[in-house]
């Protein structure tokens, strides 16, 4: 039997295991990316709140800023595999040895880990938005959070979508580290299958192909979403009876700029 046939056999024989692995991998990657993005948006919004006048509120805001910085630095500065172990077994320690549900644990770990990266990505997206966009919104009476949700975040999201896609792809691959807490994602399934087939190479090659198909498909889909978000290239004029700019200017000559 050559290894192609062996791989084919693995797909045929263990497809339900593999599918389950794919399901869990995608679940945790998707939830982790979305929750992480939401965390990032909340943190980004919080960090851009103008400094309060009130001394007490300002101290409170500073403390919050400090905590968020610590969160971002710690979760970006340590491996997710270690975070998974610390959180999973830390929970068990304070709960008399009862462990967390592995699925729940996996979702939480990937979400807060992604959140730390997203916070920085979103912050970059927000500070790249022109100050004039904020002022335009403030000037019509919008509050800071209205300004963020309706004006700034939609624009930042479009700008950071490539980085968010990238995080999603990273998550699909990196959730493999959750096998250390027994989370039955794709890599965990591969390890189990190897114990039965004893064919390490063919099994992991099969799994590599699956990972690649997943990440490649997701990348394409998100590209498509990016193009959709950019909208139509052209606009349509409404109502033939309306004057256009030139006609309007000509119909109403004024003692303005030109004849000083």
């Amino acid at each position, binding site marked *: 039997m050559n290894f192609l046939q062996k791989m084919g056999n693995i797909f045929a024989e263990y497809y339900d295991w593999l599918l389950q692995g794919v399901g869990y991998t995608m679940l945790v990657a998707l939830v982790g990316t979305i929750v992480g993005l939401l965390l990032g948006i909340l943190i980004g919004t919080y960090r851009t709140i103008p400094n309060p*006048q009130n001394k007490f509120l300002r101290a409170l805001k500073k403390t919050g800023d400090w905590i968020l910085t610590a969160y971002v630095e710690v979760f970006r500065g340590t491996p997710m595999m270690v975070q998974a172990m610390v959180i999973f077994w830390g929970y068990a320690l304070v709960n008399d040895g009862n462990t967390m549900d592995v699925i729940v644990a996996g979702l939480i770990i990937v979400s807060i880990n992604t959140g730390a990266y997203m916070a920085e990505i979103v912050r970059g997206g927000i500070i790249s938005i*022109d100050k*004039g*966009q904020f*002022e*335009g*919104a*403030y*000037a*019509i*009476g*919008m*509050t800071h959070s*209205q300004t963020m949700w*309706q*004006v700034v975040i*939609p*624009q930042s999201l*479009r700008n950071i979508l490539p980085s968010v896609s990238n995080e999603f792809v990273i998550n699909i691959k990196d959730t493999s580290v959750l096998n250390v807490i027994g989370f039955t994602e794709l890599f965990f399934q591969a390890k189990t299958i190897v114990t039965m087939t004893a064919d390490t190479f063919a099994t992991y090659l099969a799994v590599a192909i699956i990972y690649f198909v997943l990440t490649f498909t997701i990348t394409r889909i998100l590209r498509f979403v990016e193009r959709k978000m950019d*909208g139509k290239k*052209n*606009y*349509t*004029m*409404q*109502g033939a009876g*309306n*004057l*256009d*700019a030139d006609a*309007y*200017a000509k119909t*109403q*000559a*004024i*003692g*303005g*700029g*030109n*004849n*000083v």
Partner: protein
Amino acid sequence: MCKQILQFCHLGKTFGDHQVLRDINFTVNKGDVTCIIGSSGSGKSTLLRCANLLETPTSGEIIFDGKNILTEKSHSKYRQKVGMVFQSFNLFNNMNVLQNCTVGLTSVLKIKKQEAEKIALRYLESVGMSAYVNARPHQLSGGQKQRVAIARALAMQPEVLLFDEPTSALDPEMVGEVLTVMKDLAKSGLTMLVVTHEMAFARDVANKVVFMDEGVIVEEGTPEEIFQNPKEPRTREFLSRTING
């Protein structure tokens, strides 16, 4: 009879140790069209930005409808009544023309979408931009953008509208269309406070002109007083520089 609507009392503003505004005192009456003139760096924008609370004054008071707005907690309520038009338009890039004009109505004033669109269309029509409801800001010329920005501000039905050099970022051939809109607004009785370098506009449209230099109001008066009979040497010097230069 004049009813005062907006009043600046001993207003001051410093950035670090740089005093940009010093003891600014003047009053805007209902229906006034006040033009603020002065060379660049004299503090005109800062004054207007203070009037909209985009900058926090470091001393003095701003009285609107009899209340000092600097002591009010929420800026939102005040800004609904005192709108602002910027030199750089500041249209929302993620929205089309119509949405730019409705977002304040729906999210700030809590007006239903359909009703908001009706209101927005009315003002877009008044600035000659109702044909462009579907366009995005980047698809418009500068003059068109500024007219949409004016419609956006008007849709909130403000009591006072502030303009910070609304035509300074425009190509010369587009200045006229924006000034036309502003002249119409002045005629309609809107209270306007306009920072401008368009001396002809100040002369023909304003009923009050304020000349600023180095953070202080040097002179204020009717357009005739300022343009034909300036009392202060600094005003005279500025005018001869801008009008002949």
